[in-house]
């Protein structure tokens, strides 16, 4: 049984995520789209905190809200007039977009409905031991069973390649 407070928080988070993600793709001013994206990402961070993944929620705020959205805002301001409206959609592209989104919704809803009894009766969030940053770091850097040392090293090489690539591509010639 969830407490009333967590149900209210659930309703607020869900509402913010759904409304802001719809507004992100429908607003005609691009700077507003970036702002709505920021609120959607904050909603996801609150979701992670509610699930008990504090570290993941912190990473979400620091990397997505603090890094990626700021990068988007810089790019928008550098590449044009942010106050301009985007041109109106043609009927054809709207139809294509709605069709693809509804097809995706249909497939997802069908997958959810086929398991709906199990998910509804599947009961509440199970108890779990709170993992500490200590444990997370231990598993991230262990090379034993269930360790993530190889992906960790691979992604560090990838980030280095990405930094060099970003500098090389974006520099003035």
């Amino acid at each position, binding site marked *: 049984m969830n407490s009333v407070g967590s149900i209210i928080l659930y309703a607020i988070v869900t509402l913010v995520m759904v409304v802001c993600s719809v507004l992100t793709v429908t607003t005609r001013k691009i700077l507003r789209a970036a702002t709505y994206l920021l609120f959607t990402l904050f909603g996801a961070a609150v979701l992670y905190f509610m699930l008990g993944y504090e570290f993941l929620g912190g990473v979400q705020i620091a990397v997505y809200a603090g890094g990626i959205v700021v990068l988007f805002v810089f790019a928008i301001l550098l590449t*044009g007039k942010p106050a301009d409206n985007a041109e109106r959609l043609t009927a054809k592209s709207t139809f294509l977009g709605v069709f693809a989104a509804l097809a*995706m919704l249909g497939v997802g809803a069908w997958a959810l409905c086929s398991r709906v009894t199990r998910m509804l009766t599947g009961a509440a969030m199970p108890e779990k031991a709170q993992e500490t940053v200590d444990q997370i770091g231990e598993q991230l850097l262990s090379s034993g069973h269930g360790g993530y040392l190889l992906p960790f090293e691979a992604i560090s090489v990838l980030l280095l390649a990405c930094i060099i690539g970003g500098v090389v591509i974006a520099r003035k010639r």
Partner: protein
Amino acid sequence: MEITLIFWLVPSLIMFCCGVYGFITRRNMIAMLISLELMLNSVDINFALFNRYLFPGQMEGMFFSLFAIALAAAETALAIAIILNIFRKVKNVDVQGLDTMKF
């Protein structure tokens, strides 16, 4: 009322569908990238949710989300570098206007 898994999966599905819609209808490359971020974020949410509800003793889904966030950051940085470079050459970031491959 219990908040079960499906109550969280539905908003995540709606978020993904918004991303699909935006990716197809938008012309501006940065707006397309924003739609892509919506899709990536909804998948991250699903990883964390399935981990928390179905396998609460493990941390695999959380690590997948962490790596996905790092990859999304890398991808966005490179994509924005490419977009800025294109803007410098053709003064335009609309996908409709980009029809030459060599300048």
